[in-house]
């Protein structure tokens, strides 16, 4: 346990030192989306007014996903590079699976913080540019952010250990991009009734549950998935991705 906490402390220190960079990369996209979709497009009459409320929790879920994936993917690239810095971690007195799990926890903390910083920024922005007020249920929000962070970081661990570094440029185009478009971030799950049973295909995407979780806590007045369904989805993805990520980390690092 000492080794686990020591590694976590090291990772948070290093993340803290690069915090301006991490936060800028996490906040730029949602801020610009709010500007365009919250102000410019409604003024042009191209987007319905309701969209301004719908997008806030969705953008928060995307921020958490991207920060979690990046928070694991970037250090993992150094770990598994030619110099194999990961050896220092693997030689610490804890199992390789715990080393993997520590990476997930560190990534989850980073992504949770990014999400919680992004929300007030977006609330302020959306109020400024479109006069819409969002009133989150903070007590409900916190635990959902934690679980969403774990799902995101564990997903990042799977990407980082299963995808060869030379293909990492493709990740955004073929994995993260489609995930965001089909992740119920820009439209609530409830509205997908229009698609009939095809909508169930969307459920293979963990971002759907994260978006709905944020919707439940940030904009409860908008139609959302059943809270039990949200929790079950998040729990299943967290468990599955942690298990698979730790396994693949172990097989990549212990020869």
């Amino acid at each position, binding site marked *: 346990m*000492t*080794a686990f906490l*020591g*590694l976590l*402390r*090291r990772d948070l220190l*290093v993340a803290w*030192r690069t915090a301006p960079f991490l936060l800028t990369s996490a906040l730029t996209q949602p801020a610009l989306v709010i500007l365009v979709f919250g102000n410019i497009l409604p003024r042009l009459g191209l987007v319905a007014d309701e969209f301004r409320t719908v997008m806030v929790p969705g953008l928060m879920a995307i921020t958490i996903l991207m920060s979690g994936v990046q928070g694991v993917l970037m250090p993992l690239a*150094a770990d598994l590079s*030619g*110099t*194999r*810095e990961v*050896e*220092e971690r*693997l*030689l*610490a*007195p*804890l*199992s390789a699976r715990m080393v993997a799990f520590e990476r997930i926890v560190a990534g989850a903390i980073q992504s949770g913080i990014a999400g919680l910083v992004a929300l007030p920024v977006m609330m302020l922005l959306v109020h400024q540019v479109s006069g819409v007020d969002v009133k989150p249920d903070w007590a409900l929000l916190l635990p959902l952010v934690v679980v969403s962070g774990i799902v995101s970081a564990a997903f990042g661990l799977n990407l980082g250990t299963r995808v060869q570094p030379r293909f990492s440029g493709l990740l955004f185009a073929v994995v993260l991009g489609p995930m965001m478009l089909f992740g119920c971030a820009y439209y609530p799950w409830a509205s997908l009734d229009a698609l009939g049973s095809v909508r169930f295909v969307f459920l293979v995407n963990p971002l759907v549950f994260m978006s709905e979780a944020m919707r439940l806590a940030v904009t409860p007045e908008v139609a959302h998935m059943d809270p039990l369904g949200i929790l079950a989805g998040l729990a299943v993805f967290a468990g599955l991705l942690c298990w698979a990520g730790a396994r693949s980390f172990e097989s990549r*690092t*212990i*020869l």
Partner: protein
Amino acid sequence: MSTLVVEDLRKTYPAAGKAAAVEAVRGLSFEVRRGEFFGLLGPNGAGKSTTIGCITTLVRPTGGRIAVDGIDVVARAAEAKRRLAVVPQNRNLDRDLSIRELLLFHGLYFGLPRAAREERALRLLRELQLQDKADSKPAALSGGMQQRAMIARALMHDPALLLLDEPTTGLDPQARRALWDLLKEQHARGLTIVLTTHYMDEADRLCERLAIVDHGRILTEGTPQALRRSLPGGRVLDLWARGGAPLGERLGALAGVQGVEPVTDDEAAHPGVERLRLFVETQDGLLDRVLHEVRAAGAELDHVSLAQPSLEDVYIHLTGKELRE
């Protein structure tokens, strides 16, 4: 009790894609006593790094058993890791931390209390002459300094066993000597050290006992002196000649010559030259008889030297080839 026991270690890397399975270690056994300086000597690809990987839990053995201080490294990995430290071949210092920080964090991973961590980091920075670079990141250090920083890091948690994998590869001669002195000093203080190398002189200078490894097996094991004595004769006569009839058999029949081996490496650089290594006893008139035989064969002498056998001769005698660099 032995600090390190390796019993019938086997490691086969499974086939991956087009690459066939590789049998890197094929039944390797040795023991290292407490306080001993032990060497694994062999060419690149002999299985030394795989062996170190298995001892340090970074490579999963296919078969056999390894125990550090009596603790099985597979069954009780976390406990075993507390007792060992490794200076790897690649420089894997944490790039995001300063040298001081990475020592302190290493101590933290191993559960050292704050005061002990700080005291030890300070002492090691001083002893390894890293004070001036304590607040620099690893990338700002020379190769020799990074090597010393890795040793300082390894010593932070006071291991019972220090493993070094090819520690002087890529170092300039001065840094190499400084590293040898440092290791001798740590050994003199009672640290058990296992070193792998493909440099004969390094093994000869540092190791109290060594095993010569090739193709994943131990060919022979003993003190450097005993290994040299194991050669027939006791002296080595190197002889190059050109022209004339083949000399090998003729010279082998001479009194005082215990064995003849052709030297076959780098043939292209010595066209038309027959190069032989003779294991000889020092006898009166031996050189005379050899020279006479060379002339009788109609050959011309290019080079001749008589020397104490080196570990390299032992290696060549055992494997029939030079060390692959």
